[in-house]
């Protein structure tokens, strides 16, 4: 009946446009419209998060770096990863993502290596999201609303949340549980919540962008000074923020530097290069075996970067580049200092409306459970793929009546809570992000390698797929795969070169990578031995049957 893979043959009514003759048979349905797929691929690089990374990290860590040039340089990487993952997914349209793609093309051990890296990155990212939810979301949000509404209690709460490890873990953990709950209701409810949250976040960004667009730079300065006056007792707080930065040796108007633009690539890579997320649920969303799978990944990634450019330009123009650098370098007066100086706070402060601040804050804050849920799609689908291959207990795949993989969700939430605890107590914000990005890139490079060899390793599959097209005489999937590996290496080099991006102890980091890869090998051996003792050969789950 209905296909897991997208229906390549359309209903009879579409015969003329498709060029096919079709007969009355089950399963001939149109796939899910591209919207859900593009949204899923858009979310990891959502401008709300990328702008926060740009404002918070890029301006302070890479003064003189040009964000727009950085985005321009990252776009080929986005396309490389999108098409490497996308074309492979169109050839093997199954849920499970990199694990399925790599294990079926190269070897199950390579699949597990990739999967362990991406899962480890997922858990680290979840810890980051949990931490960021409190330290750049909830805390600054409450402080901002309190400041705008002159509510000292809210300001105090916000400050406490931002600085207390205990509250970071409690609220970060609660957010994780909330994200897990999103997934416990089956696809129908999940997608409804996903789209609602997505439009809340995006809507708040658009509203803030529109307000900023129609607020001149001088009006913003005037309004900001009015907002700050009761706290700073200064008529030119805006100017004093920049002056304080100068006094502290911060160059708020640095000359363009290409060498400073390079770390911007690394910073953008923390959010912008993961637009291949539908690979993990491809079999469920029926994006299937056409090139649209890859195109939707590329579209999700480039649209999010385009939005970063547009909104970044608007916010920089309204707030002022020098002010953003000064504010994010710790030069805001203590009385109105807010981590990350989020755009929604500045816009709300400019408008002087508490109600507006509350609305945009609430719409902004839901980004974190949204991105957390997106991240957990990888972990839950990976667990399913493991289980189907017989390397995890079958009970992991238990689903509720509504179709929710609640045991897999529970495992993902518990794993994330453990890493969150570690992240809060044993590491730094930068380090979590750097480790997550780089370990994920190992998996992504393995997928790139898989794409580069698939025309030879799975020649028949490649020839029969929509991925079979060439660029300058070279298979496009090979071009994408090689470009993905090169992109991964470039980002690795950037991170290893610029220790300020979070890799200060290289030995510790390489040990972390080696242990992750080693665990994958050990896991495979252990699973194989256990299953063999039960009379089951797990190699059969992967092995391709020779056709008669």
């Amino acid at each position: 009946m209905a296909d897991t893979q997208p229906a390549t043959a359309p209903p009879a009514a579409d015969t003329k446009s498709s060029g096919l003759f079709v007969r009355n048979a089950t399963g001939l349905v149109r796939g899910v419209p591209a919207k859900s797929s593009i949204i899923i691929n858009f979310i990891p690089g959502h401008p709300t998060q990328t702008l926060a990374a740009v404002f918070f990290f890029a301006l302070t860590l890479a003064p003189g770096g040009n964000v727009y040039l950085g985005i321009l340089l990252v776009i080929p990487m986005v396309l490389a990863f999108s098409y490497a993952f996308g074309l492979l997914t169109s050839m093997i349209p199954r849920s499970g993502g990199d694990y399925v793609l790599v294990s079926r093309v190269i070897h199950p051990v390579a699949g597990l290596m990739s999967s362990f890296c991406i899962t480890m990155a997922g858990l680290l990212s979840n810890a980051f999201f949990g931490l960021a939810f409190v330290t750049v979301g909830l805390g600054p949000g409450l402080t901002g609303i309190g400041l705008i509404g002159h509510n000292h209690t809210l300001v105090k709460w916000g400050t406490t949340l931002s600085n207390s490890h205990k509250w970071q873990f409690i609220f970060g953990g609660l957010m994780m549980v909330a994200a897990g709950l999103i997934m416990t209701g089956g696809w129908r409810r999940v997608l409804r919540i996903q789209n609602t949250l997505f439009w809340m976040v995006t809507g708040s960004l658009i509203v803030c962008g529109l307000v900023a667009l129609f607020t001149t730079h001088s009006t913003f300065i005037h309004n900001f000074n009015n907002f700050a006056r009761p706290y700073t007792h200064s008529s030119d707080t805006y100017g004093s923020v920049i002056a304080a930065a100068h006094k502290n040796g911060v160059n708020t108007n640095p000359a363009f530097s290409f060498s400073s633009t390079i770390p911007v690539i690394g910073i953008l890579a923390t959010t912008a290069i993961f637009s291949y997320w539908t690979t993990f649920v491809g079999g469920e969303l029926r994006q299937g075996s056409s090139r649209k799978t890859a195109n939707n990944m590329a579209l999700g990634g480039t649209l999010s970067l385009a939005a970063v450019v547009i909104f970044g330009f608007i916010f920089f123009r309204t707030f002022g580049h020098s002010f953003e650098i000064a504010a994010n370098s710790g030069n805001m007066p203590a009385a109105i200092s807010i981590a990350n100086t989020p755009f929604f706070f500045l816009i709300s402060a400019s408008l002087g409306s508490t109600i507006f601040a509350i609305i945009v804050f609430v719409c902004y804050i839901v980004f974190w459970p949204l991105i957390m849920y997106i991240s957990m799609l990888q972990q839950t689908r990976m667990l399913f793929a493991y289980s189907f291959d017989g390397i995890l207990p079958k009970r992991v795949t238990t689903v509720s009546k509504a179709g929710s993989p609640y045991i897999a969700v529970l495992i993902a939430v518990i794993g994330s809570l453990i890493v969150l605890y570690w992240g809060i107590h044993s590491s730094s914000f930068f380090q979590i992000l750097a480790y997550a990005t780089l370990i994920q890139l190992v998996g992504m490079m393995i997928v790139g390698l898989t794409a580069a060899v698939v025309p030879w390793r799975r020649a028949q599959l490649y020839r029969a797929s929509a991925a079979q097209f060439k660029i300058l005489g070279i298979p496009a999937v090979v071009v994408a795969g090689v470009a993905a590996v090169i992109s991964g290496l470039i980002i690795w080099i950037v991170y290893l070169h610029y220790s300020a991006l979070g890799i200060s102890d290289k030995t510790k980091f390489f040990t972390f990578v080696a242990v992750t890869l080693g665990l994958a090998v050990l896991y495979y051996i252990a699973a194989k031995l256990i299953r063999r003792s039960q009379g089951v050969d797990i190699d059969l789950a992967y092995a391709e049957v020779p056709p008669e």
Partner: protein
Amino acid sequence: MGLFGKKKRSTPDDQTLSLYYASDVHGSDQCWRKFLGAGRFYGVDALVMGGDLTGKAIVPIERNGDGSFKATFLGEVRRGNSERQLDELLDAVRYNGMYPWISTADEIAAHSADLDAQSELFDSVIVEELRRWITLADERMAQYGIDVYVMPGNDDPWSCDAVIEHASHVVACDDRVVRVGEHEMISCAYANPTPWDSPRELDEDALYKRIKALADQVEAPESAIFNLHVPPYDSGLDTAREINKNLEIVFKSGAPHEIPVGSTAVRQIIEEYQPALALHGHIHECRGDAQIGRTLAINSGSEYNSGRIHGVTVAMASDRVLSHQFVIG
């Protein structure tokens, strides 16, 4: 219960039968040949094909006098002018479970406008392809001594039946009781009604009566295999997106609406007769297993156009399933 869900270790002495089950290959030449190859590869006693053998689409390939050709395939226009390129396209079409049809622009245009002509064309290409498949199975499986049981599914046109019935080694198992090793097996190709009005559909009452008539002939239901194309209703093996009368996915609140679409008749039969094993296909995305009383019900799933055949190997003792493993070959 052990770590991987095994209740107790079984010795080889318990095993009475090993089989490989797959379904819904939908015209994929690659999957059919892998189905046959699975016998030796997995070292099983028997192969069971659960229906829906035939493809759903024909890809017309426009061939011109100068040898050049053009076809629309997987959403892309493919052109070429050499025999090698044409062969590659033919392989790709068959690999994806479709039937290539080489003809002139005029013939293609004529068929495009004539649904009766398309129907005749389908019958012709389906029978020709299936005959080739069955001949291959007869020759190879007899040589290897592996039993092969094949039935059509709800999507398969009636012209398929004669081709399967005339096989020499392949056992046509639909609508009868056959022996698979020491186990009795009943098979039913019919499905409950679908939005597509496929060739073999019955309402639930008629479907129940049809299967019950077969089940009543089984001497030992507790050791039997029920090979029923459609899965039991609301078993987790039958969840699919709801389709409206225009064959479009029903969306509710912006998301596809998923519903159980299996058969209540099949569920009732399984609950009443409690066979050791129930094998199903039909809902491609619902690969998995479910326990219904003492019956292990399995849907092998399908991704026929990926060139990998989804199947399951099952080891059986006289009155129960010892172990099973989902495989993608």
